[in-house]
């Protein structure tokens, strides 16, 4: 038996620290906060304080559902500190939707506990490794739709966030991964991908959210494709809940 159970450390109260990164709606020279993506960090002082290590570990342990639930609980517990007029985006593994039949009722219960309307929630579907139970996954997607939640496909263009996922989820938002966004203004190949995803979103009746926006030149490039939802360090790093209200007021 191990002297040290990392999963227990992550899941104990206070193990997950929620952060909130604004997604900006840019119109002309002005930008306002459209949504907040709920992000998570593991226990401070451990390897899991880095989100990449945290979620790679969780996926290797095949405990996505437990940790997805813990991340949502931790984020919603701080909702009283957040503006009520913005969307809240939560990351959920496709494997959680496919394997955890109680997930959608759980989300509804936690949301209700914190007086968050389901129509305020966008579920960002993330997946790194198939397979998941296709039928259960589609049922969970239908339940989320019926409950009023919006849907996004995260990391479009990478890994399992592929065309099949787009058809299965029929998302409201396509989140364009930072790999394609960073330096798109200087790279014709990246612009080609941005153009293709924008066209795809139009066909799906969805909007593109560009992640990893760091350079003003890239903003101009993205605006040229009529992308108006932008997220990245150029606007704000992930913020603790206490810092969100003042950021939104200043935006």
């Amino acid at each position, binding site marked *: *038996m*191990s*002297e*040290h159970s*990392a999963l227990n450390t992550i899941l104990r109260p206070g193990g997950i620290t929620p952060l909130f990164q604004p997604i900006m709606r840019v119109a002309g020279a002005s930008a306002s906060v459209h949504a907040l993506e709920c992000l998570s960090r593991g226990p401070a002082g451990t*390897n899991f304080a*880095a989100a*990449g*290590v*945290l979620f*790679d*570990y969780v996926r*290797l*342990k095949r405990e996505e559902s437990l940790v997805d639930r813990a991340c949502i609980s931790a984020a919603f517990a701080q909702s009283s500190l957040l503006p009520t007029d913005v969307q809240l985006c939560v990351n959920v593994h496709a494997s959680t939707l496919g394997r955890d039949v109680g997930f959608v009722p759980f989300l509804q219960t936690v949301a209700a506990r914190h007086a968050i309307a389901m129509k305020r929630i966008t579920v960002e579907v993330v997946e790194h490794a198939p397979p998941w139970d296709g039928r259960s996954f589609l049922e969970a997607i239908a339940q989320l739709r019926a409950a009023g939640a919006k849907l996004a496909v995260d990391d479009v263009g990478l890994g399992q966030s592929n065309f099949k996922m787009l058809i299965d989820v029929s998302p409201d938002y396509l989140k364009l991964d930072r790999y394609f966004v960073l330096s798109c203004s200087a790279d014709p190949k990246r612009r080609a991908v941005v153009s293709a995803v924008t066209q795809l979103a139009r066909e799906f009746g969805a909007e593109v959210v560009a992640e990893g926006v760091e350079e003003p030149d890239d903003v101009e490039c993205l605006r040229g494709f009529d992308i108006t939802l932008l997220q990245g360090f150029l606007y704000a790093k992930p913020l603790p809940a206490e810092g969100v209200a003042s950021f939104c007021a200043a935006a």
Partner: protein
Amino acid sequence: MKLASVQSDRILIVDDEELIVMAMRKYLEGLGYAVDAAHELEEAQALLANYSYDLVIADLRLTGIGGVEGLQIVADVHQRCPRTRVILLSAFGTPEIERESFNRGADVFLQKPRAMMEIATVARTLLEHR
């Protein structure tokens, strides 16, 4: 010791015994290495997926892992970075496991217990002769 080399070298310790991890980390950090530690195979794999290491020092008897199966860590390391050196430690090593560890790409196989100074000397030698 080549100080410049030591200052930039990053070591990952993989062992489920906290006291051993603490002692080894303290000793190696005292020599100027940057040291991370993992207590489970999956934690080590997650670190390897996110960072580059010059050397991995791993105990074969990780949680839930025994015998030849513990050699999975060598494959994980070399899949990520073929240039990363690997020292395997085991209190229960057999000639078969030792032979198989070299077949899979481990650089050194040490029977436990070993003095920290001895492990550090082997580590330094490996890092200086990459």
